[in-house]
């Protein structure tokens, strides 16, 4: 007897949950996306869109060990103009001292713009 009552209750609860889920999906695709993100990155900062982003934005820019490092990288580029691949590596800061090998190569703009052709 009691188990039957329990069963009925569970079914009701389940359908109420389903309805809430459906409402969430219909009402807020953002929240669905948020859940996806938190599932992939459980340690994502508690402060959404806060200081981490801002500090990363303020520090934007490729870091070199020192000016000699920078000038060597530039000189390398002048000699090897075909090297253009790894332009999108993330910044190397904080974990270890960067070396010229670590850093993405940059192509200096020695030629005129192709818009001006």
């Amino acid at each position, binding site marked *: 007897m009691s188990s039957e009552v329990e069963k009925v209750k569970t079914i009701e609860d389940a359908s109420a949950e389903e309805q809430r889920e459906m409402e969430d999906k219909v009402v807020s695709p953002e*929240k669905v*996306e948020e859940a996806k993100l938190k599932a992939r990155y459980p340690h994502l900062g508690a402060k959404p869109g*806060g200081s981490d982003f801002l500090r990363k934005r*303020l520090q934007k820019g*490729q870091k070199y060990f020192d000016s000699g490092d920078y000038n060597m990288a530039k000189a390398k580029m002048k000699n090897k103009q075909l090297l*253009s691949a790894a332009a999108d590596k993330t910044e190397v800061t904080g974990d270890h001292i960067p070396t010229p090998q670590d850093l993405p190569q*940059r*192509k*200096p703009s020695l030629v005129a*713009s192709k818009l001006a052709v």
Partner: protein
Amino acid sequence: GAGNAGVGGGNDFQWCFSQVKGAIDEDVAEADIISTVEFNYSGDLLATGDKGGRVVIFQREQEGNNRSHSRGEYNVYSTFQSHEPEFDYLKSLEIEEKINKIRWLPQQNAAHFLLSTNDKTIKLWKISERDKRAEGYNLKDENGRLRDPFRITSLRVPVLKPMDLMVEASPRRIFANAHTYHINSISVNSDHETYLSADDLRINLWHLEITDRSFNIVDIKPANMEELTEVITAAECHPNQCNVFVYSSSKGTIRLCDMRASALCDRHSKFFEEPEDPSSRSFFSEIISSISDVKFSHSGRYMMTRDYLSVKVWDLNMESRPVETYQVHEYLRSKLCSLYENDCIFDKFECCWNGSDNAIMTGSYNNFFRMFDRNTRRDITLEASRESSKPRAILKPRKVCTGGKRKKDEISVDSLDFNKKILHTAWHPKENIIAVAATNNLYIFQDKIN
């Protein structure tokens, strides 16, 4: 569909391809990526800046000069290297040469002036024409070599002779060392004497003639950087009130400041923010509310802001909410997780008004760009692509399919190319001519008439 009628002009109005500039090859060098596009006040000149620090200026051909169907084509007028990469020795950081913004000065004489800026340094460039040169000097010959004075037996008056047009660009002022953080905006004041420059935390006011000093007019840097909650994302001077400017923030707010009220405008005169439903708040809310561009209407009565998914028009007399909101690509709301992972959620789209303020334009992904007619409430999606690049070809409207059955000619959200972003667009100040930057290519579209 029935053509792209009705947006940006009258009912019979349609956009057509006019020109495309730039290389066709698939392998795009980073330096060639266009980072800013700007018409001058008359619309006769169109300037672009790129990641390689170069500026290219196009000039509109006078109509009636040549073939009747090449109505007002833009051709290269001048190109120069504006900024070079530099190295900040104190922080061991590279300073990119990428041109963040170009702003023209109103023309006051035969020469043209523009301001161009990278992350740290603003430069005033003078672009002038030379179409005459003097011939018949007494002391030097035609090649410039000095003549032997003993051979000179008579005096002659040098004569001005026409020469092939030469356009020269020279840096007249360099405004440096005033920004600790990265410059995102410059804006020329309506007094034509001053301009403002804004970085993430500060805004400075300059006099165009003075390079060794600038006034700091906004400073939102907190005493303790741990308390940093928002940054300045864009700033602009009011088009006709020289004491007024606005700046937008990463939290989706806009502050209007009056320079007559105080020297340091940390306290705003007006604060614009749209109320948000707290129950709908998510991890992404603040990121997508960050304003990437703010532009006053030509009339000065309205301003427009661009955030990740929408464009909003604000009446300067109403701070509580925008008067109009236009969805640019709402279908991306259910893709925010991947857009966060590939960093696209941080893309900074710009927006612009047409000359009469009745239409607005902004870019999107897949080389799509969107236009909204404020009067008819019609909107249209067009594409900047080599495939629709036959001269005077009418652009076909595009549609993104958001779910369910995809109709023919529609493109599904998952097929969009997020590497093809249109971040920079510009609208001619008087006519229906638009310039759209698609990575390394510049497209120019015009209306169908003629």
